[in-house]
């Protein structure tokens, strides 16, 4: 039988070259989605194959890799991807945002400020911000070519007319370097401001849709909005029940079936770091009870 033998970081060198060339063009054209010949990976499409291919193409022996899903290093998919690289590339892994040189993420940007020695790799399901307004690739490609983003503004405006607000809570579209409208992946809009003028390089990989895009460091990233309806990040108005943080994005934990809830940091490394530094939340207090008008 043709017993499989795999290369460092799984991908063969020819595939890595192809992805590396796409990454360079992506950096040179911030926010533009570079088509690439995404490979079939040993994990399902939609489960991070784009991010995994980008990570595999950049990862070296000196790197320290962190993988998060929903902000946590301990979610099953994050564990699975981290193990994949530990096994195929033998790289050091960490849960510490600070110690990592490459961070692969699904749906969150870490709370700690990233530095210039780091690369943040996003897993992206649908890279095209205009896709839900126009399903045809041929059409959306034309719109990007002409920087014709009226459709997006109409959509946001219709939200305001119907709901009084822009009704997009995650994957909130941004404009990169005043040119391309870009999908930030399904991160909560709370994270959008972190993309702007970030010291780290941000790379985005969409495996099934075969696109790679990038935000170079120190690049302007603006969340789309209107003067009279400015962009507002959303965060549940409570301190983290574990570390007391007032400025972190929170997971809602259902504690019983009688309206009991508690709110804790979604970024587990951030939360644990704060707890280790002596910060405390209201752990011992009774879990938060939902009542009218108390949510933010």
């Amino acid at each position, binding site marked *: 039988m043709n017993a499989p033998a795999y*290369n*460092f*970081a799984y991908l063969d*060198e*020819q595939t*890595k*070259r*192809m992805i*590396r*060339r*796409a*990454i*360079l*063009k*992506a*950096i*040179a*054209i*911030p926010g*533009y989605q*570079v*088509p690439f010949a995404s490979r079939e990976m040993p994990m399902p499409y939609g489960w991070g194959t784009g991010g995994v291919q980008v990570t595999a*193409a*950049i*990862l*070296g*022996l000196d790197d320290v890799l962190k993988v998060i899903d929903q902000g946590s290093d301990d979610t099953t998919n994050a564990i699975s991807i981290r193990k994949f690289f530990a096994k195929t590339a033998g790289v050091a892994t960490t849960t510490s945002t600070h110690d990592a040189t490459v961070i692969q993420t699904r749906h969150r940007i870490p709370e700690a400020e990233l530095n*210039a020695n780091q690369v943040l790799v996003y897993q992206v399901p649908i890279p095209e911000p205009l896709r839900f307004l126009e399903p045809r690739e041929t059409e959306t*490609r*034309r719109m*990007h*070519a*002409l920087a014709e983003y009226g459709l997006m503004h109409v959509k946001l405006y219709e939200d305001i007319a119907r709901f009084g607000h822009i009704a997009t809570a995650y994957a909130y579209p941004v404009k990169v*370097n005043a*040119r*391309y409208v870009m999908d930030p992946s399904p991160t909560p809009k709370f994270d959008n401001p972190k993309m702007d003028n970030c*010291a780290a*390089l941000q790379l985005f990989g969409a495996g099934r849709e075969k696109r790679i895009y*990038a*935000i*170079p*460091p*120190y*690049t*302007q990233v603006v969340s789309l909005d209107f003067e009279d309806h400015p962009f507002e990040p959303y965060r549940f108005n409570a301190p983290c029940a574990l570390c007391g943080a007032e400025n972190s994005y929170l997971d809602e934990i259902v504690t019983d079936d009688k309206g009991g809830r508690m709110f804790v940091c979604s970024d587990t490394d951030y939360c644990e770091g704060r707890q280790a530094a002596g910060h405390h939340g209201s752990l011992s207090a009774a879990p938060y009870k939902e009542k009218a008008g108390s949510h933010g």
Partner: protein
Amino acid sequence: MTTIAELPPGFADKVLSAQSTFRSVMDAMARPGSVQRIVPMAGAPAAMMRGAAAIALTLFDHDTPLWLDARMAESAELVKWLKFHTGAPVVQDTSIASFALISDGAALPPLERFALGTNEYPDRSTTLILQVDRLDSGRSFELRGPGIDGVATLQGSIKPFDLFERLRFNEALFPRGIDLVLVADDAVVAIPRTTRVASKGS
């Protein structure tokens, strides 16, 4: 005639050297004006700098049409080395080249002759790899744009002298344009199409 056995070698460790070289080029592209070092050394044919040789081994293959300037193209050893180690097809037509290797900056063809991409596919453009004299001293330039925290300063001895004036056409062309990689021995600096370069003091 050079036989394959007599050609300068490629990377000793193809996988890890390509990775390390790529990271230097990626960092250069992400941080325009910053000088990155290429550590892993491959052998290089006479007309080629070590950094340029490493970049070629890292990024070129059968799928990347390559244009060589006259000085490079006339070296049979260099052409054979590239073909043997990368397989990249050498083309005469600048407008279909994925990469262009230039050792003689003074004879750089007009930039608009290279592939500039289209508005639909701006990535289908030539990446220019230009060998220059120095990237540690010489004239000073101020760089602004994505990847740069405010202003970056680049010092270099670069030919052609009007390179950055010529490159200014990127501004009007965007998102089309030319991305440039400068190499001086093992030092690499990238100037992607978004970077605005001005002579310091001018």
